[in-house]
């Protein structure tokens, strides 16, 4: 092999690598693939081929980049989970679909925004008398539109659409079939739990009906985190818009409050749900996923906060003052810890070895567990004093569900850190557990009003 030939070959390989680098899903494994390419080339040149011929054959045998990208994307969806349309042939049909995406999203958002005004046509207004109706039904105005958007985007089949329709109808029945007073605990519980149940129904649409696939479920968890962040950002922007609208119209003596209260805020809020989902889907790789970034920032901080809380309990020997709201506070704490755990799992490279951050995560989970067990012990001691109301039962049930999840997660995490179990076990535990959340949310929505006499 001459020197000129060698240089040519190096240039060709460099070019091939540059081409690979443009594919995010291949990027990290370029070294491994390059080693393979070089092995193949040297085998072929030893068999008597010219370097450039050997290069061509080696590249061809490697497989088309599109095909490779697809396979790598399937295996490493954490690298590009947003790019749900895996790189295929950019034919006319897909290009046309891409152009239609924005109009479809706008239509779904408009449907959601107008849906919330439909009850007004029948005299059910957003005022005090019917506040309970809107509280219970809010998610029913918008989440079907969101599911419709994903049905279109994933080209879901008739079977999936049927399942979605049945579940949404069930939700509507649950929200409206019971005679619930506006200020009853059951109305509040339904207002909190129906959105959770229906959000998981949206998940069925999101994964295009593949709800058995653990990877797709994890995709939905990723989506949910990013969606929440976008939604909060949009809501804050919306708040500023409202403030300026009210202020400027006030300055010219026009009272815009009526318009803001009954149109801008409710319709805008509904539309924001859809727009956030679209932004998560559309942003591709423009910015890094936010949820894992926030997780990395807050995991150490929460770990320190919980540890110092534990130390404070031991130091002062003060018991936890168990009052009415304490369970809810600790439920929320568990939700935060679970969120921190979920979003570090969702962004983790499953094959990476355990590191310092994983140990921190374990410390966080275990201290949350210890604290929660202390709270539960304190609560059960006084449960007879409180009696079981709907609120308390829901809070207690949620606490136990979250505690179970975190306890088993901690066990799996420990196994992973000690090198006994692969990380994927923890991932699958989390994705499988989603069904528990769904079941619990539906139980609260359907069974609690009956069990507690519509209180």
């Amino acid at each position, binding site marked *: 092999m001459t020197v000129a030939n060698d240089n040519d070959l190096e240039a060709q390989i460099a070019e091939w690598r540059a081409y690979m680098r443009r594919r995010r899903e291949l990027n990290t*494994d370029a*070294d*491994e*693939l390059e*080693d*393979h390419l*070089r*092995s*193949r080339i040297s085998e072929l040149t030893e068999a008597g081929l010219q370097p450039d011929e050997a290069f061509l054959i080696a590249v061809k*045998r*490697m*497989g088309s980049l599109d*095909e*490779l990208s697809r*396979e*790598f994307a*399937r*295996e*490493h969806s954490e690298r590009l989970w947003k790019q749900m349309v895996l790189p295929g042939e950019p034919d006319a049909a897909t290009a046309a679909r891409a152009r239609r995406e924005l109009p479809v999203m706008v239509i779904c958002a408009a449907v959601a925004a107008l849906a919330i005004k439909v009850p007004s046509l029948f005299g059910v207004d957003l005022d005090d008398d019917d506040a309970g109706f809107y509280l219970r039904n809010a998610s029913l105005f918008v989440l079907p539109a969101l599911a419709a958007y994903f049905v279109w985007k994933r080209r879901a089949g008739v079977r999936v659409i049927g399942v979605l329709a049945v579940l949404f109808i069930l939700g509507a029945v649950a929200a409206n079939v019971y005679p619930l007073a506006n200020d009853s605990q059951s109305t509040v519980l339904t207002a909190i739990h129906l959105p959770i149940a229906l959000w998981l129904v949206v998940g069925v649409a999101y994964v295009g009906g593949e709800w058995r696939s653990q990877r797709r479920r994890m995709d939905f968890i990723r989506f949910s985190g990013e969606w929440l962040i976008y939604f909060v950002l949009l809501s804050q922007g919306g708040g500023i818009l409202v403030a300026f609208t009210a202020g400027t119209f006030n300055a010219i003596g026009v009272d815009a409050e009526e318009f803001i209260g009954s149109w801008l805020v409710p319709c805008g809020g509904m539309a924001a749900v859809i727009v956030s989902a679209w932004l998560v889907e559309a942003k591709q790789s423009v910015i890094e996923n936010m949820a894992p970034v926030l997780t990395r920032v807050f995991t150490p901080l929460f770990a320190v906060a919980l540890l110092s809380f534990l130390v404070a309990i031991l130091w002062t020997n003060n018991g936890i003052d168990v009052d009415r709201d304490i369970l809810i506070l600790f439920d929320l704490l568990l939700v935060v810890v679970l969120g921190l755990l979920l979003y570090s799992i969702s962004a983790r490279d*499953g*094959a990476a070895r355990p590191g310092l951050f994983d140990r921190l995560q374990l410390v966080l989970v275990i201290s949350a567990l210890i604290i929660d067990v202390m709270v539960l012990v304190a609560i059960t001691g006084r449960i007879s004093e409180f009696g079981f109301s709907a609120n308390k039962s829901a809070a207690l049930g949620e606490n136990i569900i979250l505690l179970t999840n975190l306890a088993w997660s901690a066990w799996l995490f420990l196994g992973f850190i000690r090198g006994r*179990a*692969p*990380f*994927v*076990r923890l991932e699958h535990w989390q994705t499988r557990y989603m069904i528990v959340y769904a079941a619990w949310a539906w139980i609260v929505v359907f069974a609690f009003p009956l069990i507690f006499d519509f209180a």
Partner: protein
Amino acid sequence: MYITKDLVAASTTPLVLGILAEGESYGYAILRQVNELSGGRLEWTDGLLYPLLHRMERFGHVESDWRTPPGERRRKYYRITDQGRAELVEQRRQWAAVVDALQAVWNTTQSIKPITGLAWETGA
């Protein structure tokens, strides 16, 4: 010889695990060994081996690390784990059942002979 995609996909995991059970190896060497073992009849698209190896790593069947053997390029070596060995035993059990069933079918069904000419071409 052409072997359908599904068949190739189903057999890759036990093949790779079996090869790694003999000792650690890297992607290119694994492919060559598959080629030798099958007498050149089992051909994969080279690149597709790697997502498979990564999946097996994620499930904990294999482990990997980058190493530079003296006088060679830096390479990613794969090693089978205990769990991978257990998986191999399980796969072997399943494949044995499939092979037995197929064998029984070949023996009982008279009309299936090892193909010398296609049936409709020989006028049967």
